């Protein structure tokens, strides 16, 4: 394709959240002038998700503050933004996507950024009053309305989302119980020391942490109690199910794409000719780490959307970011850069206070900062240098 062709091709972005909008913005910045269509399943103007479990749920921010792009910048994209429009099928050979209204969107290049959806507990009944998940703005507003002072909230799942909500709910005066199936939730993500300390922090703040037990039944409609597999019962006015998420790839079944766990991509985030994936839904080959990764991290959504845009414009490089996320609990901010080896691997206390590093065979694989934002930066820089070196070889 001649260089001019890149600028004028029809680009279709499926997904109007962080990764999709990052791709759109980066395409225009790189000189793409052709038709640009963005399909968004949700009706709301594109918004940012991390504050949903924190500032929005706490009541500190209004929904308007969550806009991913100021309205003027959104208009300047000159994209056809179709909100409330869900993609239902991809036809690779004809290079088109069908949406739920039956409309067909033909493309020269497509970016799939459809994100993930919360997993549900098998024992929760659809539509059961007082049972919540937290992924969308609507979810967050619904849960927020339930979190009155004295409300008894049971959080199913002691992962990042569940514990962030527990912290926010405590700040609003709710009584909170976290039920988690494994004894040390987050040990695989934070290592043994930090995960233990985080659970301790929640207990200090009055959260009842019930680790090592499952949920047998959520009784009542509206909900009244949660029965645990250890035979005990916890009274509940509200239940949040936060047991992880699954990639939104059901609509791609039978398309020919590999969607075993997200959309499998190469190191350029290409899933098939003319098709890329970005954000939570993408599982791509990270050349610096030497493995396929699928990251549900906010920073990755932006970086991957931008990397895909560059590749669409013929300027791509292998995508080798430093995996990075942060999570806020009360006045504590944890940040993790790189990869925490399964089971925590060999962790060491770094010379900088609050920093833990993770190693495999004496190679730095990851680093964690506990209220140590600036102290973590040299480790992020070191990981970046190593990945880029590996990718260049």
């Amino acid at each position: 394709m001649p260089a001019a062709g890149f600028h004028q091709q029809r680009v279709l972005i499926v997904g109007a959240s962080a990764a999709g909008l990052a791709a759109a913005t980066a395409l225009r910045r790189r000189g793409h002038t052709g038709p640009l269509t963005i399909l968004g399943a949700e009706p709301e103007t594109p918004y940012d998700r991390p504050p949903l479990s924190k500032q929005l749920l706490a009541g500190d921010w209004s929904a308007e503050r969550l806009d991913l792009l100021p309205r003027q910048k959104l208009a300047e994209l000159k994209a056809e933004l179709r909100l409330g429009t869900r993609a239902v099928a991809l036809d690779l050979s004809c290079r088109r996507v069908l949406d739920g209204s039956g409309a067909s969107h033909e493309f020269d290049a497509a970016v799939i950024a459809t994100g993930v959806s919360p997993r549900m507990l098998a024992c929760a009944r659809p539509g059961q009053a007082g049972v919540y998940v937290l992924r969308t703005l609507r979810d967050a507003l619904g849960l927020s309305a339930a979190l009155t002072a004295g409300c008894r909230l049971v959080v199913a799942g002691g992962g990042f989302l569940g514990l962030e909500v527990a912290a926010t709910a405590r700040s609003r005066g709710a009584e909170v119980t976290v039920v988690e199936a494994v004894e040390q939730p987050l040990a695989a993500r934070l290592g043994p020391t930090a995960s233990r300390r985080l659970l301790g922090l929640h207990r200090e703040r009055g959260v009842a942490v019930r680790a090592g037990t499952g949920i047998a039944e959520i009784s009542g409609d509206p909900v009244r109690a949660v029965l645990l597999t250890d035979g005990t019962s916890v009274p509940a006015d509200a239940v949040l199910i936060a047991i992880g998420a699954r990639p939104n790839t059901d609509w791609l079944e039978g398309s020919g794409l590999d969607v075993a766990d997200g959309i499998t991509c190469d190191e350029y985030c290409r899933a098939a000719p003319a098709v890329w994936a970005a954000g939570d839904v993408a599982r791509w080959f990270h050349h610096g780490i030497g493995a396929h990764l699928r990251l549900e991290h906010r920073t990755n959504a932006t970086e991957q959307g931008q990397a895909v845009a560059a590749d669409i414009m013929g300027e791509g490089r292998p995508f080798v970011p430093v995996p990075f996320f942060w999570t806020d609990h009360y006045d504590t901010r944890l940040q993790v850069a790189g990869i925490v080896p399964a089971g925590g691997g060999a962790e060491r206390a770094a010379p900088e206070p609050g920093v833990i590093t993770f190693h495999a065979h004496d190679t730095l694989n990851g680093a964690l900062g506990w209220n140590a934002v600036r102290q973590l930066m040299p480790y992020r820089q070191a990981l970046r240098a190593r990945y880029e070196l590996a990718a260049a070889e």
Partner: protein
Amino acid sequence: MKIVVDRDKCVGSGACVLAAPRVFGQDEDGIVELSSAEVEPGGEREVRDAIDACPAAVIEIAY
């Protein structure tokens, strides 16, 4: 070229510091701080990378 940051909207991801360490820094909470509001000649590329990398879109260039 002058840089303006909206510290109230900053989420402290540090993406700007990774992209342009000579221009951007962070306070103890991770909130962006400008080491220099003026961009040196040759430093524009880095600053544009930082603007793009910011997940909260809080960095702008004022002319």
